[in-house]
C-alpha cells in the first residue's frame, strides 16, 4: 500500500524515510508491549505501522508539511504531535455523532439505529495512540453516497458521519409524515427492517416534483405529473435527459437552501437516477417505484 507521499522523494530519501518509519514502529511496539515482548503478531505490527503512517499523513496534511519532514525532525516528537491530530479528529467525529444521533428519521430504519448504537462503542474502544486505522464498530446502514473505502479509522467514521448528516439535513426539509408515507410506498416489504437508504426515495420523489413543478409538501406525484415526467424525460438524447435532471437538482437544492455538500450529493444522486429512469421508460412508464403517487 502506498499513499503516494514517498513518490516525491528520491530513492535515497525514500530509504531514509522507511528507516525512520521502522524506528518509530520499533518504538511503538515497545510502548505497546510495555517493554515485555520483543516480538508481536504480524497483524498487530502491521496495524501499528498503519496507525503511524495514517497519523503522520494526517498531521502533515493538517500542517501543510512535506513528507520529508520526517527526515528533518525528531520522529518521536512528530508522532506525538500526530497523535494530537488524530485525537482532534476523534473530537470532531464525536460532535458529528451527537448531531447524527438527532437524525429525524432514525426510528424509520433498524440498521441506522443499530449503526448509531454501534458507533457509540467506537468512541469507547478506539485507540488513537496505537491503532488509529481501526474501526471498532459495525457500520451497516447504507448511505446514498458510499464513503471512500480507502479511508480508515476515525477518518472513515468522520466521512461517514458527514455524509449521514448531509442526507439527514435534506430529509429534515420535509414533513416526517410525508416521508414515512413515501418510504412505505416505495418499499412495501418494510423500510424499517431492510437495509435501505432513507435519502434516495425522498430525493427521487422531490426531484420528480421539481421536474413537474408540483408541491413538495406531501411528496406525492399525480397522474398528470407522471404524464409530464414522461414527456420531459422521453427524449432519446441522453445528454439532454441528464441536463434536465441536473437542472431539477440545482433548482431543488436552491429551493431547500442546501449547503455545498448537500447540493453536490443531490446532483450526484440526480445523475445516478438516469439508468433507472431509462429502465422505466423502456418498460412502459410506470413511475410508481421512482416518483410515487401516495394514497
Amino acid at each position, binding site marked *: 500500500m502506498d499513499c503516494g507521499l514517498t513518490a516525491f522523494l528520491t530513492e535515497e530519501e525514500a530509504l531514509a524515510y522507511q528507516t525512520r518509519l521502522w524506528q518509530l514502529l520499533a518504538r511503538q511496539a515497545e510502548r505497546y508491549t510495555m517493554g515485555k515482548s*520483543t516480538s508481536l503478531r504480524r497483524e498487530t505490527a*502491521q496495524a501499528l*505501522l498503519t496507525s503511524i503512517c495514517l497519523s503522520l499523513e494526517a498531521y502533515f496534511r493538517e500542517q501543510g508539511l512535506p513528507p520529508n519532514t520526517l527526515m528533518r525532525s525528531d520522529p518521536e516528537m512528530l508522532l506525538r504531535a500526530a497523535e494530537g491530530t488524530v485525537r482532534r479528529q476523534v473530537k470532531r467525529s464525536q460532535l458529528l455523532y451527537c448531531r447524527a444521533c438527532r437524525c429525524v428519521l432514525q426510528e424509520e430504519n433498524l440498521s441506522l439505529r443499530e449503526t448509531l448504537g454501534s458507533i457509540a462503542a467506537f468512541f469507547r474502544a478506539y485507540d488513537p495512540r496505537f491503532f488509529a486505522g481501526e474501526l471498532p464498530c459495525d457500520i451497516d446502514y447504507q448511505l446514498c453516497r458510499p464513503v471512500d473505502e480507502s479511508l480508515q479509522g476515525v477518518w472513515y467514521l468522520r466521512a461517514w458521519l458527514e455524509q449521514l448528516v448531509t442526507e439527514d439535513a435534506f430529509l429534515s426539509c420535509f414533513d416526517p409524515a410525508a416521508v414515512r408515507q413515501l418510504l412505505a410506498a416505495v418499499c412495501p416489504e418494510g423500510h424499517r427492517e431492510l437495509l435501505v437508504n432513507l435519502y434516495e426515495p425522498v430525493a427521487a420523489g422531490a426531484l420528480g416534483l421539481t421536474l413537474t413543478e408540483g408541491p413538495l409538501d406531501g411528496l406525492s406525484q399525480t397522474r398528470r405529473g407522471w404524464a409530464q415526467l414522461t414527456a420531459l424525460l422521453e427524449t432519446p438524447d441522453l445528454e439532454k435527459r441528464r441536463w434536465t435532471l441536473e437542472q431539477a437538482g440545482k433548482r431543488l437544492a436552491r429551493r431547500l437552501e442546501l449547503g455545498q455538500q448537500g447540493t453536490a450529493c443531490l446532483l450526484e444522486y440526480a445523475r445516478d437516477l438516469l439508468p433507472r429512469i431509462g429502465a422505466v421508460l423502456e418498460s412502459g412508464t410506470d413511475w410508481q417505484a421512482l416518483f410515487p403517487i401516495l394514497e
Partner: protein
Amino acid sequence: MDRELAAIPRHEDTARALEDINRRTAPMGLRLTKEECLTLAERREQALADTGRVEFGGGILPALAEAMADSPYLDPADWAETLMEGQLLFYQWKAETGDRVPDRAVLAFLRKAFDYARGAIACLEGFSLKELRERMGDRPWTVD
C-alpha cells in the same frame, strides 16, 4: 508512505545480537561459530515467518542465551542447536499465548522445560505449551 511491513528482521541486528551472545557466553565455554551464527539468523527469520510474528532489534536470542546458558543439562557442543530449537519453541509458545504472557515468563518456562527434558530440547517440540505445562504440573499463569 509505505504501510507494508518489509525486510523483517534486519540481518545487522541479528548479527549484533549474536556477537553480544558470544561475548557474554565465551567465558562459560559457549561459543557460536560464524557458520552457526548465519544459520541462527536464517532460522530466526524462518521461525518468525512460520509463527506469523514480527520482531524488532536483536530479538529474543540474547535473552534466550542468558536463560539457557547456566543449565546443568546444557552440552556446550549443542549450544547452537539449543538456541535454534529454543527460539522456535519460544515463538511458537508466544503465538500460543496470544501475546498475553511476557517474554520473561515464557523464557523462564522454556528453561524449566529444558531442564525437565534433561537437555533433550527436541523432545519438547511435539507438545503444545498447554500440554507441556500440564504434564510438568506447572502453576497456571495468571493471564490464563
